[in-house]
């Protein structure tokens, strides 16, 4: 079988997995099976939740795979350059100001603050990394990301330390990530960003393959490494910030999904990116199901489920397969 044909087989399998996940996600929930009587619940509660889980999972996986490619580092996730820290800080500030004082605003300030926080943090990281490091090394950029993440978490700790227990709990819940309040409104809110970001990232899958031989060699192969890197980072950041703003910080998806895909289907980004989209969407839909059933009527945070299921699965994969970014 030729390599491209094998790629189609894997993609088809991933799409099938996604279809199964969607059906399960819509069928299963505390209110019971699909029926005309609970159509309202299905349409207004479960379906937007499934749709949002799919969008968030797809975006985080795609962004994670792209970041790993750009930095040629398997331990990288979409939160690497400070997106998580910035979003967390933005959310913390809004929550600690009190939702009551902001509820009459035209725009819901929480996702907006998380979105802007993520974008701002990554921008600071990029400017700092570019200003202080030599132009072509990605290491300085990663280190700048670590610095910015520390800074945002310091400010966040300062704000939280002066807040009430209720605020701390609310912030903590947000940080763990959840799709409890998913609505069609959220879907409409993030979809444009995700579509644009996803299109840009997918269009760069060949460039990510060229980058696999290293920045220097990629440059001698005619790739404008700096421009490609900034484009991919920008697109991945906008997409990540958008989904984080409605879902909170869902851990592990951005690392575990691209890796699992890579281990099974090989490391070429022409394959890893599209298949990660489908598998990431399926993974988060499925991970969201136990969350709503386990402690019914309370919710288990989605981020807890993804890490709890993802980590052991990942360890098994690491044990059985070898991988390279």
């Amino acid at each position: 079988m030729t390599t491209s044909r094998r790629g189609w087989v894997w993609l088809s399998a991933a799409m099938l997995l996604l279809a199964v996940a969607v059906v399960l996600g819509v069928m299963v929930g505390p209110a019971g099976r699909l029926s005309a009587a609970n159509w309202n619940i299905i349409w207004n509660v479960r379906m937007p939740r499934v749709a949002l889980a799919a969008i968030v999972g797809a975006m985080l996986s795609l962004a994670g795979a792209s970041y790993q490619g750009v930095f040629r580092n398997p331990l990288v996730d979409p939160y690497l350059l400070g997106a998580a820290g910035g979003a967390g800080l933005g959310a913390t500030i809004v929550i600690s100001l009190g939702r009551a004082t902001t509820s009459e605003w035209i725009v819901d300030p929480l996702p907006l603050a998380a979105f802007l926080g993520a974008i701002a943090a990554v921008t600071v990281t990029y400017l700092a990394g570019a200003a202080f490091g030599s132009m072509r090394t990605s290491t300085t950029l990663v280190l700048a990301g670590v610095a910015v993440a520390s800074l945002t978490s310091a400010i966040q700790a300062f704000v939280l330390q002066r807040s009430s227990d209720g605020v701390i709990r609310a912030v903590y819940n947000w940080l763990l990530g959840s799709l409890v309040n998913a609505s069609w409104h959220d879907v409409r809110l993030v979809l444009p960003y995700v579509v644009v970001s996803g299109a840009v990232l997918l269009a760069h899958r060949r460039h990510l393959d060229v980058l696999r031989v290293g920045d220097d060699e990629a440059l001698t192969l005619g790739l404008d490494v700096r421009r490609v890197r900034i484009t991919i980072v920008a697109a991945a950041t906008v997409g990540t910030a958008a989904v984080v703003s409605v879902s909170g910080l869902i851990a592990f998806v951005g690392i575990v999904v691209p890796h699992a895909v890579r281990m099974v289907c090989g490391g070429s980004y022409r394959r890893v990116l599209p298949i990660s989209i489908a598998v990431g969407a399926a993974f988060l839909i499925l991970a969201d199901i136990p969350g709503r059933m386990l402690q019914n009527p309370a919710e288990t945070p989605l981020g807890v489920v993804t890490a709890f299921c993802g980590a052991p699965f990942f360890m098994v994969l690491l044990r059985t397969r070898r991988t390279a970014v």
Partner: protein
Amino acid sequence: MSSMQPTQLVFRDLSVSYDTQVAVHPLSLTVPAGGWLCLIGPNGAGKSSVLRSACGLVRHRGSVTVAGQDTATMSTRHRARLLAFVPQLPLLPADMTVFDYVLLGRSPFISYFGVASARDRATAGEVLTQLDLAGFADRRLETLSGGECQRLVLARAMAQEAPVLLLDEPTSALDIGHQQQALELVDRMRWERGLTVVSAMHDLTLAGVYADRLALLHEGRLVADGSPAEVLRAEILSEFYGVSVRVHYEDDGTAIVLPNRRAR
């Protein structure tokens, strides 16, 4: 592959500095179209810096011109169409296939959002055949031996169809048989395609056999430059390598460089 024009490469007052450290003092060298210039010199003499400045990997002063155009002012893509570079330690993604790796050499010809065309794939296939790698097309890079990898990196450079080939110690990791194989291959491409070659090499005898001109660098300065017979002389090598060597000449003029063993 006939589209390639034999192309001259000119270094004019080229100098390279890393922060305050000068790696290459201003030097000028002209490599005629179809020529093979070999940079020799002790470790840290600046050979790699000269090669890397030509393909845009390090900032330099002075100019490097290919076919009359300054490489510093051309786009990354255009430069990659004129200069192919074989690094000292290529990064080989373990699970990439041989064919996909060689296809990377076609990158400068694929439009930004495009994919490899049928012609690109055909070119990659031809190069694989020429380098006796056709049977390896679907193999993953991690399964190749050192010699096969070296040939593969050359294949990628050939797929680039650039008129100038820059080789940074292409044979340092190879045994004598594979050294010869790799250099013969470059030599054959040079004759078949009129390639202009600049290489950095440590093996002085091999350098003299394949290159038609040697440039000896020492502490970033060009200290000797000429035909192998002019440069490979015991007194020159002893002075700049700080070693005691003798040089034998074969009947055909080939120089053989031998270290002198110290008397016990």
